[in-house]
C-alpha cells in the first residue's frame, strides 16, 4: 500500500527526498540543514544520502543563501532554501524582492528562477522573539513571487514537490506549530494542483477562510459552531499569491458572509486583500462586510501572551457571530 501516516514534518522530508531522487539539479541550502537535519529535522538524513554538495550547510547569512541560490538557479540548479525561522528571512529581503522576484521579468524570460524558499512560519510554540512571525503579506505584495502555505501532511508532501518542480520562485510557508500533526498520505495519489484553494468543509451560513496553521483552528471552530447549529463553510486558501478566489466567490455568493482568519497582523494582512476582492466580486450578495480575525497590530508578543495574541476558536466564533448579526 502507498498510504502512510505522516506528520507534516515527515511528509516534507519524504517529499524532498523524492524530488531529490528524481532531479539531480535539486539542491537544499540553509543553516544547520545538514548533519543536524535542520532545527525542525525537515531535512533529516538527506545530507547523508545526497552528499554535502546537494545538501549544503551554509554560512550564517540569509542574504548569502538567497543570493547564491540566484546564481545557482542561473546555472541550472533548483535551489531549495530553508530559512531557519520566519523572523530571519529579513536579511535576505533585498535578494528576494529586488532579485529573485524580478530576474525572470528583467531578463524577459531568458533566466528562470526556480527557487523555493521554505519558511517555518507562525506562532504558538512558546518561542522567543523573531521565531513566530507571519511574513506572508510582504511576499504577497511582491510581483514576481508566488506564495503558498500548507496546512496538512498531504499538501506538505505533494506541495513541496510541486513547488520545486515549478519554474517560478515560490515562498513555501510551513505551519511550524503543526509540524507534528499527522494524517494519512497516499504517496501514489494524484495531487491537487498547487495553486488552488480548497473547500475543506461544506456549510451554508458563513464562509470562513484560512491558510497554514489557522486551517485547523477554523475547522475546530466550525465543529463547535455546528454544535450550536451554525454551518460554516471552510476554505483552505493554500495559494496566497496568486490567490485562487473562485471557490471563495462561489461560496460567499451562497452564504453572503465571509470571515478571514490569519495570524499575521490584521492591517495589510492577506485579509485586507481578500476583503477588497471578495467585496468587489460579491458586492450584491454580501449581507455583512468581510470580517477579519488576525494578530493584533503589535509586534508578536512574548510567549506568555501568544495565546491572547493569536486567533483561536473563540475569536473565530466571535467574528462569525458578528457577521451573522449584520
Amino acid at each position, binding site marked *: 500500500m502507498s498510504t502512510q501516516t505522516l506528520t507534516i514534518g515527515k511528509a516534507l522530508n519524504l517529499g524532498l527526498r523524492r524530488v531529490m531522487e528524481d532531479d539531480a539539479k535539486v539542491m537544499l541550502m540553509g543553516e544547520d540543514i545538514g548533519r*543536524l537535519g535542520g*532545527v525542525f529535522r525537515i531535512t533529516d538524513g538527506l545530507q547523508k544520502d545526497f552528499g554535502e554538495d546537494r545538501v549544503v550547510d551554509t*554560512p*550564517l547569512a540569509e542574504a*548569502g543563501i538567497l543570493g547564491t541560490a540566484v546564481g545557482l538557479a542561473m546555472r541550472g540548479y533548483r535551489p531549495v532554501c530553508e530559512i531557519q525561522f520566519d523572523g530571519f528571512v529579513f536579511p535576505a529581503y533585498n535578494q528576494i524582492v529586488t532579485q529573485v522576484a524580478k530576474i525572470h521579468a528583467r531578463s524577459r524570460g531568458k533566466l528562470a528562477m526556480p527557487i523555493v524558499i521554505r519558511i517555518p512560519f507562525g506562532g504558538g510554540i*512558546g518561542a522567543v522573539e523573531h521565531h513566530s512571525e507571519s511574513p506572508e503579506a510582504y511576499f504577497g505584495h511582491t510581483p514576481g513571487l508566488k506564495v503558498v502555505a500548507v496546512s496538512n501532511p498531504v499538501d506538505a508532501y505533494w506541495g513541496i514537490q510541486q513547488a520545486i518542480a515549478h519554474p517560478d520562485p515560490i515562498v513555501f510557508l510551513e505551519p511550524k506549530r503543526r509540524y507534528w500533526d499527522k494524517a494519512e498520505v497516499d504517496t501514489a495519489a494524484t495531487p491537487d494542483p498547487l495553486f488552488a484553494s480548497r473547500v475543506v468543509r461544506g456549510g451554508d451560513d458563513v464562509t470562513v477562510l484560512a491558510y497554514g496553521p489557522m486551517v485547523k483552528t477554523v475547522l475546530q471552530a466550525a465543529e463547535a459552531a455546528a454544535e450550536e447549529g451554525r454551518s460554516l463553510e471552510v476554505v483552505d486558501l493554500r495559494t496566497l499569491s496568486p490567490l485562487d478566489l473562485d471557490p471563495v466567490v462561489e461560496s460567499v455568493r451562497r452564504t453572503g458572509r465571509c470571515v478571514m482568519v490569519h495570524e499575521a497582523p490584521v492591517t495589510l494582512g492577506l485579509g485586507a486583500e481578500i476583503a477588497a476582492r471578495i467585496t468587489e466580486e460579491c458586492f450584491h450578495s454580501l449581507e455583512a462586510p468581510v470580517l477579519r480575525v488576525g494578530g493584533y497590530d503589535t509586534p508578536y508578543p*512574548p510567549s*506568555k501572551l501568544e495565546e491572547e495574541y493569536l486567533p483561536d476558536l473563540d475569536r473565530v466564533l466571535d467574528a462569525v457571530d458578528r457577521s451573522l448579526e449584520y
Partner: protein
Amino acid sequence: MSVSSATEVVDPVPGAGAPHLPRQPDLVQLLTPEGERVEHPDYAIDLDDQQLRELYRDLVLVRRWDVEATALQRQGELGIWASLLGQEAAQVGAGRALQPGDTAFPTYREHGVAWTRGVDPLHVISLFRGVDNGGWDPVATGFNLYTVVIGAQCLHATGYAMGVQRDGSETAVLAFLGDGATSQGEVNEAMIWAASFSAPVVFFCQNNQYAISVPLERQSRVPLYQRAAGFGFPGVRVDGNDVLAVLAVTRAALVAARDGQGPTFIEAFTYRMGAHTTSDDPTRYRLASELEEWKLRDPIARVKAYLSRSGTADQDFFDAVEAEADELAVRIRRGTTEMPDPPGTAMFDQVYAEQTPHLAAQQAQFEAYQASFGEASE
C-alpha cells in the same frame, strides 16, 4: 601594551589556496589550563588577591545561574535557555574589563556579562520564560537588551559608539558576537563603519567553535581575528577560557577605543560545552571526545587551581562561594516560579512612545473581548 596582531608570512592555510596569509599567532594566554600563571609580551595584568577571588566568584555564580536555568527549562518553567557553559571566562573577563560608563551590546548568551553589569538574573530569565523581552533597564545598566537576530547588535553598538564620539565622552562600547555571526553582512558592515569613523567600539567574538551545528570552518577558512586587518584595524586572538587573558586583552582594546584609537576585534577562542540551547541535540553533530578535550581547559578549574596553589584563596573561601551559589540558585528558582504572567494589555501599551488611535481602539476591543469571558463565566 599594544593591541595588535603581528603578521608574518608563513605556509598556506591548508586548502585555502592562499599562499601568503598572516600566521596564526599563539593565543594570548596568562593562565594555562593547569592554572599556571604565564606572561605575555604584549599583555600584562596586575590584580590583587581580592580581585582574583572576585573573578572566581563571578565565574562560579554565573555557572550556577546557568545550571539552574537549564534545570528550570527542563522542568517546563522556561520556554528555552541558551547556556553559557564553558564560556564563563570569556564573558566575565570581557564584562569586568568594562568601566561604569561603557556600554555593552550582547547577543542572547551573555548572561555572564549581564552579571558583571549588575543585571538581575531574573530579568534575564524573564525573557526565556516568555514574560517579556528582557526585564532590565538597558540605559541604567549600560547593558543593552539581548538581540536574537544574529549580528544586528553590532551595528547598534557601532552607531552608539559614533554617538559617544560625538558627545566627546571618554567611554567605550563592547559589541558581542558569535563565530557564526561573522558571516552576516550586517556584522561586516559594522566593522566597515567602525573603521571608517574610527568609532570607539570593540568587537568581542566568542568563537565557541559552532553556530548551532555548523563548525567554524564553514564561516571562515582563516582564524577570525584576521578579519579585522582586512577592514584596517587590529585583531587579536585570546584564550577565551582564560579569564585573566580575556580581561587584559579586552581592557587594552577598550582603553585604545576610549583613547580615540578606534576599533579592535577580539576573538575569544572558547567552546560551547553545552547544547546550543535546550532545544538542541549536539550529539547529532559533534563527538563526545571533543567535549572531553575541552573539559581539560575548563575556565573555572584553572582559576581555582591557581588560587589554591598561590595561596590566594583557601577552602573557606571556596566553600563560601559555593554557599553563595546555592543561595543564588534558590533565589533564581523561587523568583522564576513566582514570576507573574504579564497582563494582556502589555502587548499594546509600549508599541509606540505615542500610542496611535488605531492601536488604542484595538486594545479597547481586546479588553472588551477579554471582559466578555469574565461576564460569561460570572
